[in-house]
């Protein structure tokens, strides 16, 4: 009996962790190119709205999912323009993007509040889902969760084994040397920003199309910021991001269960848990910073184009 509860909790952990995983991977992709994007929260909520509206109008959640990615890329392109064309401060530009994105999503989404859209439903993977415990935890989810399993290894391969991945990392480590070697640093940074934005948008869409099938204005509730923190926890490595995302998925799943079980703890204290955990996780990761793969030129703009 207790075993079943634990398994159900772990399955819920994977589900709650998935939107954070998408967003964290997106931010890793962007930061590897040397650009800090603090707009994740705003991009996610725009992605959530875009996915929801497209799924609702077309009746096709898959279309909504990709639309969310595209809108994510478009939104981060604003950050690209400010940072890469106008050399604006990356910290402030990202914050502005969060303010703008949150405002825009709530402005455009007013008419959809409380409505529902066709979303993704769980689909048990044949054979794999029959494995005891593991199958129940990892392979009885909606298809988007399975998509999220594929991204970390693919992203790792991209960084470690492809020319483009190497170029992207060079743009984030030492742009001057990359330019001297004939790479177009600006183009690689554009790739980092817009590519990362695609994943952030997908993370938002997971919230409105799979986690719930509803649109509410506070859907992201700080998950974008948690993703920014998790990049540091993950030492900029896609593989470690999985652990971080599921850690937060776990605490969020636990928090929901506790609330539902009618505990004596006030809900405001329970709701604090993920944010307190974020601070703790950051403190713990700053202890062993030396082992991290932080891009050396993160947050440093390159001079404007001639």
């Amino acid at each position, binding site marked *: 009996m207790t075993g079943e509860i634990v398994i159900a909790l772990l399955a819920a952990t994977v589900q709650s962790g998935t939107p954070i995983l998408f967003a964290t991977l997106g931010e890793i992709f962007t930061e590897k190119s040397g650009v800090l994007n*603090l707009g994740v929260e*705003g991009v996610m909520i725009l992605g959530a709205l875009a996915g929801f509206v497209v799924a609702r109008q077309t009746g096709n959640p898959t279309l909504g999912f990709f639309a969310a990615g595209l809108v994510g890329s478009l939104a981060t392109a*604003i950050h690209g*323009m*400010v940072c890469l*064309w*106008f*050399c*604006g*401060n990356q*910290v*402030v*530009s990202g*914050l*502005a*993007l*969060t*303010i*703008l*994105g*949150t*405002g*825009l*999503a*709530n*402005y*455009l989404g*007013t008419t959809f509040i409380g409505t529902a859209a066709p979303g993704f439903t769980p689909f048990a993977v044949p054979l794999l889902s029959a494995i005891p415990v593991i199958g129940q935890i990892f392979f009885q989810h909606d298809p988007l969760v399975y998509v999220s399993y594929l991204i970390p290894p693919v992203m790792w391969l991209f960084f470690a084994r492809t020319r483009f991945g190497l170029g992207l990392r060079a743009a984030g480590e030492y742009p001057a040397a990359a330019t001297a070697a004939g790479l177009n640093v600006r183009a690689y940074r554009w790739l980092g920003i817009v590519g990362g934005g695609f994943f952030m948008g997908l993370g938002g869409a997971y919230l409105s199309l799979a986690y719930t099938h509803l649109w509410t*204005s506070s859907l992201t509730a*700080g998950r974008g*910021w948690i993703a*920014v*923190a998790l990049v*540091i926890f993950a030492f900029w490595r896609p593989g470690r991001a999985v652990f971080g995302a599921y850690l937060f998925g776990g605490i969020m799943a636990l928090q929901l269960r506790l609330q539902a079980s009618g505990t004596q703890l*006030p809900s*405001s*204290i329970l*709701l*604090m848990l993920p*944010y*307190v955990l*974020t*601070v703790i996780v*950051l*403190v713990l990761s*700053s*202890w062993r*910073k030396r082992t991290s793969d932080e891009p050396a030129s993160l947050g440093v703009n390159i001079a*404007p*184009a*001639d």
Partner: protein
Amino acid sequence: MLPMRIVKRQEPLGFGGSFFVIFSALVVSLLLSAFLLFLGGTPPVRGMSVLFQGAFGSRWALEDSVLKAIPIFLCSLGVAVAFRLKIWNIGAEGQFALGAIGATWIALSFPAWPKHFLLPAMIVMAMVGGGLWGLIPALLRQRLKTNEIIVTLMMNYIAILLLDYLVYGVWKDPRSFGFPMTPMFSEQAIVGKIGSTSINWGLAHCLILGLVVWVFFRFTRVGFEIKASGDNVRAARYAGLPYDRLVVLVMVLSGALAGWAGFLEASATVNRLQPSIMVGYGYTAIVVAWLARLHPASIGVAAILLAGLRVGVESLQLDLQVPSAFGGIIEGLILLTVLAGGLFTHYRFAWRRKI
């Protein structure tokens, strides 16, 4: 190829030029906002006129704008102190909440104290609360190099939930019919209004504190050290400036100023503690600080402008049913365009010569 190219200026852009750039950025962002109104089905010209009429068009509107500018100004002053050192304090919102909580604690514990004693005690506690909320991320950064951006941001969420916890729980007014709010403060715990206006004496606090911050940066040694370290951390360390201690100092000052704003909001504006005071002034403060290039006097002007936008958006909501989130859009656009305009401080466009 474009007929223009970007060239570095010999001298950074002067005051007049900077003013022109910021003014143009404001115009561009308002045009974009008007376009969004049009997309949302609101007549854009009428909408923008309602926005400005609502913000500055009548005595009542103007007073409301000044009233909202007070907390924004103080938070922004705090943010600017931290930004001078290039410490990214995004936590004004949480520090504001802790200030309000600290002031409320005193107001509820000692309601019978005389006014000239109670109000200063509330201010001190508000500054302690806000300062403490700034001290934690500062110490983490100083000792462990923990990223202050995310810590301050997370502490915003925690502070708002703490405020919720208090007003839904231990501090809840038993006669509030279930509404989350503390009992009303005693007469002695309330900052009064100036004459027959609706503006409270917090405006005077703003003028004094603005002057103090200006003097601090202009004439004191520590102020100079902060500016110098902000311009170039490595050079400052080389020159033996106590950079790590400055980080703690600016964060505590920054938090204390935002805390003071929280005190005024609880004491003067709503006369109690309730969750509705958390409307994002701490985030608007960042827009204001950047728009004003961190200068105290300009922060005053920018605070009134952005407060006016908030008031104007309220009339836009009432008259034309535009969602209140429109205010966030304008703020975001202003910040982005002003940032982009910053390029012209050190660069300019030049025609390409034909060879």
